């Protein structure tokens, strides 16, 4: 039976590299240390290429990166920016596989990452850092208190801020005269207008954010959750959310038997007139859709008085990034006044700045204040008035999971 034994041996030899353990040291420092002086990093990055992996589903954002960012980076630092469209969940898996295979030089330099995936990535040692504190623009313009946590998970300098987003609802003034302004009024509206409302099915990002709003509102506000995961508190409060959602369920689109799979699906239902509201985690989304011609000019946004969740979004560097210096220069450039102003303009993207406007010179502040957000976007002041922070990631995970059991049903 040598043959069989040899075949087994051969099989193991072939398969073992796939499982090269996840027990390697969590942090690979690579060719450059995060605390190298920035001038030296700039020098090292000159003439290189940076692979930026980011969500590719928004044409206008892609265009902004391919034109403005790429052009400025080339001019200022002689760095070639290559945008690679990929969902965060997918590139985290790619990095996990590379790490498992012991690949110390990967293909990903900079990542545009979201809070849930950041927690995963940092816990599994997929990120390089801490580097954010060494970026001049972050040091100069950002209030450090505003970027300590990403979905309740400590950032510790493993991510550089990039932009700010906040949750809004969208409606068409032609079809809907008055919109509900509180969670209680929303419930009444839904019951008065059967079939006209729905929300994307968690774990979709937007749908999940919608149920967190309700969770805050029906359980007495966000403050109690900020200290971190408390299973007893969750057990006590979650049933209130399920009650609320189950009460509106018979009045939803398709009587709540099915939900839109993601926010794009909801946008389509809204644009076709099947439902009266859409929702987005991006305040300028409605304005973008109007400019694109997908929504009529009469669409406007609103937020509920009970609170509108905001978050800061971040970029991070892969543990095995071949060009860490270039990635740091790009992350820093994205935090410059020029980049943040350009990103703020709705024709480019409309993403809200993450800079602390009080730290800017009067003329720089002016540049932000004069940006015309368009009639469909709420002003930063209106949004700031209702802003509430994101919930820690463990709550989010529990809510998404239990929504299936308690609201969707088997």
């Amino acid at each position: 039976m040598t043959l069989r034994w040899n075949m087994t041996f051969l099989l193991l030899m072939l398969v073992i590299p796939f499982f090269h353990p996840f027990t390697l040291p969590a942090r690979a420092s690579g060719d450059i240390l995060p605390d190298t002086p920035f001038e030296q990093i700039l020098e090292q990055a000159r003439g290189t290429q940076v692979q930026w992996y980011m969500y590719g589903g928004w044409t206008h954002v892609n265009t902004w990166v391919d034109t403005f960012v790429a052009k400025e980076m080339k001019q200022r630092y002689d760095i070639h920016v290559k945008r690679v469209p990929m969902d965060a969940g997918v590139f985290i898996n790619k990095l996990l596989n590379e790490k498992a295979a012991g690949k110390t030089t990967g293909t990903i330099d900079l990542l545009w990452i979201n809070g849930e995936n950041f927690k995963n990535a940092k816990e599994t040692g997929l990120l390089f850092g801490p580097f954010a504190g060494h970026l001049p623009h972050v040091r100069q313009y950002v209030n450090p208190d505003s970027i300590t946590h990403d979905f309740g998970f400590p950032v510790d300098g493993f991510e550089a801020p990039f932009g700010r987003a906040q949750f809004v609802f969208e409606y068409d003034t032609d079809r809907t005269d008055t919109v509900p302004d509180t969670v209680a009024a929303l419930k009444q509206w839904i019951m008065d207008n059967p079939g006209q409302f729905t929300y994307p099915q968690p774990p979709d990002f937007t749908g999940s954010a919608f149920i967190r709003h309700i969770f805050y509102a029906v359980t007495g506000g966000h403050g109690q959750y900020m200290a971190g995961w408390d299973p007893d508190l969750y057990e006590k409060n979650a049933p209130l959310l399920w009650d609320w959602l189950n009460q509106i369920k018979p009045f939803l689109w398709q009587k709540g038997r099915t939900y839109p799979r993601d926010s794009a699906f909801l946008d389509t239902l809204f644009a076709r007139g099947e439902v009266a509201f859409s929702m987005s985690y991006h305040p300028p989304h409605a304005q973008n859709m109007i400019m694109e011609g997908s929504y009529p000019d009469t669409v406007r946004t609103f937020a509920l008085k009970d609170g509108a969740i905001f978050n800061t979004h971040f970029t991070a560097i892969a543990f095995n990034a071949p060009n860490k210096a270039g990635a740091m220069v790009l992350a820093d450039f994205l935090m410059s006044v020029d980049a943040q102003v350009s990103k703020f303009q709705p024709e480019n993207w409309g993403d809200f700045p993450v800079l602390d406007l009080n730290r800017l010179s009067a003329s720089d502040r002016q540049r932000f204040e004069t940006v015309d957000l368009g009639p469909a976007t709420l002003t930063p002041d209106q949004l700031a008035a209702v802003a509430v922070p994101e919930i820690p990631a463990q709550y989010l995970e529990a809510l998404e999971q239990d929504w299936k059991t308690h609201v969707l049903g088997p």
Partner: protein
Amino acid sequence: MFWAPSRTAILILKLSPLILPFVVLFCGGVFLTVCQSLGIFTPLPHTGGILAAYGVILSDPSFLGSFGFSLGVALVSAAASVAAGTFLAYRVWQLPKALAGAALVYKIPLILPHIAVAFVVLIFWSRSGILSSLAWHLGLIQSMPDFPNVLYSGWGLGMILAYTLKGTPFAMLLILALLVRFDVRQIQTAAMLGASKRRIFFSIVLPRLAPAMHTSFIILFLYSFGAFDIPYILSESRPGMLSLNVYNLYFKHDLARRPEAMAILTLMLFFAVVFIIAYSRTVTRLENGVRKL
């Protein structure tokens, strides 16, 4: 050399272009999936026992719901595809020679990717789709909600439509391959002896086609049981298709839940193997029974 080159060894060596990718990619992948479902080689340190993920999955009523639903969609669409494919293939085979070329049109859905077929179904059957507007223009319905709720009815009709659209030409392809070698004289003889068309089809043609029908049924059934693209466009929330559950668990949830996704995949693979064995055994037994008669 590890071993003296025996005949088996040479045979294996010659087959290596086939075996190597199979062993490395397929078996390696299955092995890793099973390991991760047991909490070994997981991205995050696994807490709980070796069967913890299976415990979570099997005690979740929504898993059983999804399993039954996936099973139903796959069975109905595969059965419909094979039935329609057999009937159409037989008719195409009977067509006069002049029309045989034109009949090749049946191959078009074969070229279309599944996702495109899903969109075709979506565009035609959604409540604001082509059929709905047509019905409205003809005065058959008064408003959008009057159009039957095909796509999100809770029965998976949208997916069944799409799979049947894709599966029928596939079944036709396999069945036509058998039909071209079929001896027409058998039918002529039966007809001369007074057999009805019905009788000819069920007693002479169908038994000949049975092998191709069984093969296409197994392939189509298992494909729609596990495929992702059509459910991604047309699936309903409740109960969802298993493949979408796996996708959500794998990509959209915490990494700590990776073993659950892998456990579902392992159970699906296990079910597929059991299904193939059970199906072929049943078919053999049935056919033996027929011959004894």
